[in-house]
């Protein structure tokens, strides 16, 4: 991810009202995670495991924050039970920004299976998501996904493919 894209995402998150972000980094998310750490308007919590971040975001929501979770798709798959029990069951929104390893443009063969499972699992969990592949689509997607998360009181996701992150 280039720094301009990271800055665009942070700015779009703030415009959508997000003031709290948990994250677990990865090469494609590095610049975004660094930018989140440097932004004083967002409370940034780097976590050790993605499902931990889902719990922290849910707690922050109950305390009046507008949370988002930044992670790769492997972390989303790891978070399925947390999302089901902590968010979907009681009705707690979390906006998820999910980097899509193993999606279009992927060179690393090792990511293919996780890449192929990401959308079917989102669909199986009835999580509304948008796939974003162009930088100019990031801002409206974040705004509208956050609007839906807040109104539906459910997690929503933006799946950012490698084109969008570069």
């Amino acid at each position, binding site marked *: 991810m280039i720094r301009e894209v990271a800055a665009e995402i942070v700015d779009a998150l703030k415009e*959508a009202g997000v003031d*709290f972000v948990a994250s677990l980094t990865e090469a494609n998310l590095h610049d975004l995670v660094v930018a989140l750490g440097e932004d004083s308007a967002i*409370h940034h*919590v*780097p*976590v*050790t*495991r993605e*499902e*931990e*971040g*889902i*719990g*922290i*975001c*849910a*707690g*922050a*929501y*109950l*305390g*009046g*924050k507008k*949370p988002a979770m930044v992670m790769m798709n492997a972390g989303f798959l790891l978070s399925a*039970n*947390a999302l089901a*029990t*902590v968010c979907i*069951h*009681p*009705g*707690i929104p979390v906006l998820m920004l999910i980097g899509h390893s193993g999606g279009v443009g992927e060179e690393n063969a090792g990511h293919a299976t996780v890449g192929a499972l990401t959308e079917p699992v989102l669909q199986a969990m009835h999580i509304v998501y948008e796939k974003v592949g162009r930088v100019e689509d990031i801002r409206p997607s974040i*705004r*509208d996904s956050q*609007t839906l998360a*807040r*109104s539906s*009181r459910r997690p929503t996701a933006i799946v950012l493919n490698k084109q969008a992150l570069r």
Partner: protein
Amino acid sequence: MKRYDCLKAIAPHFGEELVVTNIGAVRHEWQALRPHPGNYHLQNLGLTSSMALGLALALPHRKIVAFDGDGSLLLNLGSLATIANQQPKNLIHIVFDNECYESSRGAPTATAGQADLAAVARGCGIANVVTPKTLGDFEAEFLRALKGNDLCFILAKVEPGAGDVPAAALDSQENKYSFVRYVEKSENLKILTATLSRASDVRGK
């Protein structure tokens, strides 16, 4: 020392504190001792401390108390590292360690073997770790944490066994709404209030 007796000893000291309870018998025991809209009963094993951390960071002026268990914390040990790095001064993380998966018929957890959760908490960077051995010590350590302004981890080794309390009627959605409404009212916040769609605002312009 039994968990229910520990809870009974500290329940009279609660006022407006927000509480997150682990899944299992502890939520029924706590609901019987302190029926209050500021109790959030988590229906998940592992994330009790993470939910409490999120609440503590969102409401830094409010005391947050987590009633965690050994089986739960073992599932989310990284949470201690994150809590230590965030250092929320308003969080009291209590772990009732009965060395078994009591609600799942009692098979031993790792703390029945070599694992020491107090040592893990210290190793993660939590300075204020206490391990009260008696009911009186537990109450005293809790009161010290309640009156203080520091992140506190209390590990209470307890015998297995649940208090003789009725099962609380705890519906997750109902609990969420009553908890959020209580937070909204007591903190003068709007959390659930419907907002106009920003997308339609844009179209309107």
